[in-house]
């Protein structure tokens, strides 16, 4: 067999694997639906607002609820940051105007 044929077959095999994986993705989405419905119910019932992904400190545990100053004074044995603190960005609504209490968006006239 020609080298080019072998290479293309291998690439085709890789693409097929990617394709199979995307089939798997579609297929297992349904399987995860039940779990997600369960989670959604919990979120609605308890009024949860954040993922329990990083539990070291509250500014990473409840990212969306944190204020800008917490990272430096929060958590029991913390001097400063946790590794996850470097990974997460501050909440979206604490943008440029985070300092001000009136941190509401400014309306911009569209062109």
């Amino acid at each position: 067999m020609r080298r080019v044929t072998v290479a293309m077959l291998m690439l085709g095999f890789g693409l097929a694997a990617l394709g199979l994986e995307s089939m798997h993705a579609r297929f297992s989405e349904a399987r995860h639906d039940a779990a997600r419905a369960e989670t959604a119910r919990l979120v609605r019932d308890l009024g949860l607002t954040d993922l329990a992904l990083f539990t070291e400190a509250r500014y990473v545990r409840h990212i969306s609820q944190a204020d800008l100053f917490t990272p430096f004074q929060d958590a029991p044995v913390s001097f400063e940051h946790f590794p996850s603190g470097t990974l997460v960005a501050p909440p979206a609504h604490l943008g440029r105007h985070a300092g001000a209490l009136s941190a509401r968006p400014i309306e911009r006239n569209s062109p």
Partner: protein
Amino acid sequence: MIFDPPILALLLAAAVSAVVAIAAALFAVRVLRHWDIRSGSALQIRLERRTYLVTTALKIVMVMQMAALALFVHNADRMAILFTGAMCALGTLNVNQWGMPAFLVQIGVFLTSAVWLLLNRADEMGRDYPFTRAKYAFLLLFAPLVVASAILQWLYFLNLDPNVITSCCSKLFTPEGSGLQADLSAMDPKLALIILFSGAGLLAALALFSSAGRWLHVMLGILGGLYFMLAIAAIISAIAPYIYETPNHHCPFCLLKPQYGFIGYLLYLPLFAATALMLGSGLLAALGAPKSLQQRLPAYQKRLNWSAAVLYLAFAGIALYTILRSHLILIG
């Protein structure tokens, strides 16, 4: 915002393109000053060799730019969730004043680069490289466009402010509003459809049978450019409502969303490609067939025209399909 991977990718592509375009423009100046195909001088040979590098680099840049255009729109669409008021790419583009210009210039880069590639192809057919000067003069126009595109994208992405409330497409594209978008949506759908279908048919027919006159051919290129704008207007005023099945939704960007089956890509792709082919063919006609290409150039142009005609018909066919499939009735 700048650390968003698609934005990093786009900025990378823009920066690379700008650097290549600037280098190519500097080379173009040298070509315009010293190019003499009949000379066997060391300088001429160096220039000829360098054209291989410049051409290859530009080909890569152009393929990259075409992919970047798709990525740009796709990304803008995805980022809509980050901005209050944005529903699709349009809202994201309107977050600051650089978004829309960046997008339009990117389209300009797409079309000009496609035309340059067609010109380059014709040039490489002739034994005396008849279009080299034209090609590199054209590059001097192309390079600023690429640089402008890169600068606009930088400005746009650097100034993305999530605290801005932007406008969604349903606000901008309403016949009642003011401004260009509103005017586009206010166009009579009947007229729009007539223009769209008859225009596509006429252009396809002319492209197929226009081997006649040189200036007719040039006209055809201009018509192709004009039709591009009219077709976009027709999509906004008539085709979009058919696809969304609501008479008041006119957005040309929502078409690209997955919930409409990415129909927008199917619709825009043939239109963009056909336009590029028509512009290229028209430009070649305007330059005229040099002696070395008396035989090959008309054949090449014919191929371009045929492809353009097929693409125009495909575009009209897809538009027709969306209308037939729709449950909306705009025209009694």
